[in-house]
């Protein structure tokens, strides 16, 4: 089990076994999902070359799936992108884990 997996497992277990009402449990897990999505997009975009971002937003009518693929592929091929996503997700999940330990 990798560190992200370990953290997620711990968080789900803590929430599941808590005395929170079911709706609040669901809300925590939903916010975890939303937050993770929310976090990785700006990291990815920060590694997309500026000209690709400007081309895409400057000529939206010409934006194709190939353009999307190029943006994703170029950004991800920078090794710093995956590392940053991993480190930030791990950091955030560690914070969430600590929050749950303190609050539940």
């Amino acid at each position, binding site marked *: 089990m*990798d560190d992200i997996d370990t953290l997620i497992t711990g968080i*789900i277990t803590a929430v599941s076994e808590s005395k929170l009402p079911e709706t609040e449990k669901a809300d925590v897990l939903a916010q975890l999902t939303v937050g993770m999505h929310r976090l990785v*997009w700006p990291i990815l975009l920060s590694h997309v070359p500026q000209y690709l971002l400007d081309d895409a937003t400057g000529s939206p009518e010409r934006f194709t799936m190939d353009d999307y693929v190029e943006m994703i592929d170029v950004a991800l091929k920078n090794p710093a992108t995956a590392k940053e996503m991993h480190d930030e997700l791990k950091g955030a999940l560690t914070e969430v884990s600590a929050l749950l330990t303190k609050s539940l």
Partner: protein
Amino acid sequence: MSERPSSRERESKKTIADQVQAIFERRATKGERKLILETYETKLDALIQKLPKEQQDNVAVKIQKILTTIRGVFAEYGARITDFARKVFLWPMIRSATDFPKDKYYQIELGRAKAWGEFARDTTKTATAERTAFRDHFLSTAVSHAGVGGALLGTAGIIGGAATEGAKIGAVVGLGIQGAAVGAVAGGILGGAYSAGLFFKDKIMGPPVVFYDLLAGAGRNGVTINAPTNVPQQIPMIPGAVSA
């Protein structure tokens, strides 16, 4: 006139979910990310939401390209973050294929994805309706796993059917958008206990790789999954939950 509550009092009124949201929001808007989000997020999101439609075969080839990249760069960080990257970055492409099977379950998941999308853009405000919708989506998972009206709520009943039929790819595509269901299908095929906890984990992190391998490699109606031989790991179940 009531007194303005102190910051400590305001903090204490936040739910745990609010505080989880704040943790991610702070990191998502840290440093240059805030400017990037402000400059590009809305415009790019509009573009991604409306990617031009393409044929399934074309999309499958492009998915394969991104899959190869994702596998390569996330390999050293583990399987779960790799699954998560697939989930986040491939979904707009899957949605844009004209002829991936789009049954009613796909539409259900599409609706949920849209609800999430709306909310995700608006985390600094109180997007109550979207948040409630997404919360209830998770809640329905717990309920369906508890065996209370599972079939009516969709997930558990669908999984059982899909597994029984050999999990045709149509069902996989329809179910797989949120990820959890594909893991559940794999779990069902394997006959192993598929806990609600694991179901939640799959839902959060995305489908196991088998989904995208099939999507990129086969991608046609009626193609049968060759189930992986690994057994899903166990994590504690939510009290009262049962296997799908």
